[in-house]
């Protein structure tokens, strides 16, 4: 093996050390070819959930993107939304360029990020599919991808009378058979407040808090959608308030479940994508988001994941519409919520929920 002269070795070591030092001190990142613009070429980093969502992005969005001129290479930054938001906040607060070009979040979380000035404004002119987005979902800070709404999910073998009101969650007959999630408190607050108001609770979700406390000890708590789904499928719990899309997924897995929209009404959840204010490749981000709005990709998400399209140029088959969609009468019962109000109260509600309702 050839010997490296001592002087040359020291030079190389010094250069390597300096490079490492620069990297540790947050030195300038390597240039991203896409950052210069021009059709979004280069690399686009998509911050997303793992599992099915990412798989369907790869299966249904990437082929659409690949068909466009100068399509960027897609890299996924997989994490749950909490970790992704922490990363965005941390990168935003330290200044300098970020590492995420497209960030996938629920509408409530996107609102929080927008309120912290971490999302860039959406430029409709850069999205060829923007005109197809449902008008009521349009927003200048994020792009709606898929949506669903909360429904009462019940086990048809144990809950033989289809429930039509949130009152079922306070029925002593089902104590110990109701599942809730430690990470999803907004649904529970809404439910109690809607019951208190006899309909749309407006911006008074605290009104149901005493009602919620009455559920202490009657609910089983799960840490994730997967755990709750497992509990519903195994018969550990018979009732939960969750997205209609989830009911569809669990029913497809063979569980004897049905869903109902309560007479008090419900609220939608929109899963969105946004471009962080410090995104290194916004052109690539817009190209990717445009592909997410493509009707074919949207229909595939509906069929495979159970979330309803956010664009109007998709026509899912009638049987799928019955499973995951909403009739015009049901749409009337879906109350729009004030996301700024939710973002403002989110921290307090989480603490109250964890500390006083679900904690032993």
């Amino acid at each position, binding site marked *: 093996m050839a010997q490296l002269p001592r002087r040359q070795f020291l030079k190389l070591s010094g250069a390597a050390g300096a490079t490492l030092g620069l990297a540790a001190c947050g030195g300038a990142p390597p240039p991203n070819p896409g950052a210069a613009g021009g059709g979004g070429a280069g690399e686009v980093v998509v911050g997303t959930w793992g599992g099915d969502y990412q798989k369907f992005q790869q299966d249904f969005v990437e082929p659409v993107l690949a068909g466009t001129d100068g399509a960027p290479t897609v890299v996924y930054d997989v994490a749950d939304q909490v970790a992704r*938001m922490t990363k965005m906040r941390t990168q935003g607060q330290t200044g300098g360029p970020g590492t995420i070009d497209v960030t996938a979040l629920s509408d409530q979380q996107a609102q929080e990020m927008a309120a912290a000035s971490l999302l860039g404004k959406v430029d409709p002119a850069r999205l060829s599919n923007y005109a197809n987005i449902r008008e009521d979902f349009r927003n200048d800070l994020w792009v709606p991808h898929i949506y669903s709404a909360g429904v009462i999910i019940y086990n048809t073998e144990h809950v033989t009378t289809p429930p039509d009101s949130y009152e079922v969650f306070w029925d002593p007959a089902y104590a110990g058979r109701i599942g809730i999630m430690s990470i999803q408190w907004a649904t529970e607050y809404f439910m109690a407040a809607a019951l208190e108001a006899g309909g749309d609770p407006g911006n008074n979700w605290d009104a149901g808090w005493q009602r919620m406390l009455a559920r202490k000890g009657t609910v089983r708590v*799960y*840490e994730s959608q997967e755990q709750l789904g497992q509990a519903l499928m195994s018969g550990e719990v018979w009732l939960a308030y969750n997205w209609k899309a989830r009911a569809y997924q669990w029913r497809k897995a063979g569980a004897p479940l049905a869903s109902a929209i309560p007479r008090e009404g419900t609220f939608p959840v929109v899963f969105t994508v946004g471009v962080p204010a410090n995104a290194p490749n916004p052109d690539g981000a817009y190209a990717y988001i445009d592909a997410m709005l493509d009707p074919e990709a949207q229909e595939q998400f509906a069929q495979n994941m159970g979330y309803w399209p956010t664009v109007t140029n998709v026509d899912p088959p009638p049987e799928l519409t019955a499973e995951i969609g909403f009739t015009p009468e049901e749409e009337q019962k879906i109350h729009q919520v004030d996301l700024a109000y939710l973002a403002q109260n989110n921290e307090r509600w989480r603490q109250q929920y*964890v*500390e006083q309702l*679900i*904690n032993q």
Partner: protein
Amino acid sequence: MTLDRRTGWLLVMPAAVITVVFFVAPLVYFLRFSFERPSRTAFSEPVFTLENFARFFASPFHVGALTRTLLVALAATALALLLALPVAYLITKTNGRVKAMLIILTVFPLLVGNVVRSIGWVALLGYSGVVNTVLTAVGFLDGPVELLRTATTVTVAITSVVLPLMVLTLQASLESVDPNTERAALDLGARPLRVFRQIVLPQIVPGIAAGTSLVFVLCINAYATPRLVGGTQVPMLAPVVYDTISSDNNWPFGASMAALMLVVSLAVVLLYGRLLRRQFEGWRVAR
């Protein structure tokens, strides 16, 4: 060979620099947040305040989480010590392949991550898990019961995580005990249990102190096991710190809890080490 003072310092310097730059500095940087106010748009608002600590001690939930964390850590450490002592003693009494095999078996669980082991507990103790299924099938239970999400289960699960470390620490200490001291006691008519209690145990006090201190600190800082086995219903401090920072973006309050964990861990370990050494010194001299 002895090194002169200058060479000694030079050898220590790289490790010292790395420790200060990559461990002490970030820690100090992070802990300074504990004296600042939360902010919605930045890590913190740079003012000096003790509000975070006041809030912690005024909150039954957070004080409860600290108390629970300490009790679980104490119980898991005691349980690990009890279980590890006979195993470590057995290993020291074996030789050759048997000894190597026992050490490999002890180390083996460390090759599997905490998360995977915790998932194992969930599969074992969950509603449709092995224990519930078997007990229901043999008629011992009418139906599945809640075995997860209790402080007892979390204690047992954490013990299983730290047990190999305790065994290895005690075994290293037991190896240094001169077997002639045991033989002499046996020759003089002492029963094996008395030999272990009066001859072996006092000699491995430093090992016990090291093992229990190490394990106690690991238990106090446990994250994955309480999160997965206990869920939100057995709140322990490390998961609460994580949730406060990540879900609420409240770095100052999270940092204040981290500072408290650090202080409590250090205080307990230092006090315990001194107390244990003093007790056993007195005991050894008295005998």
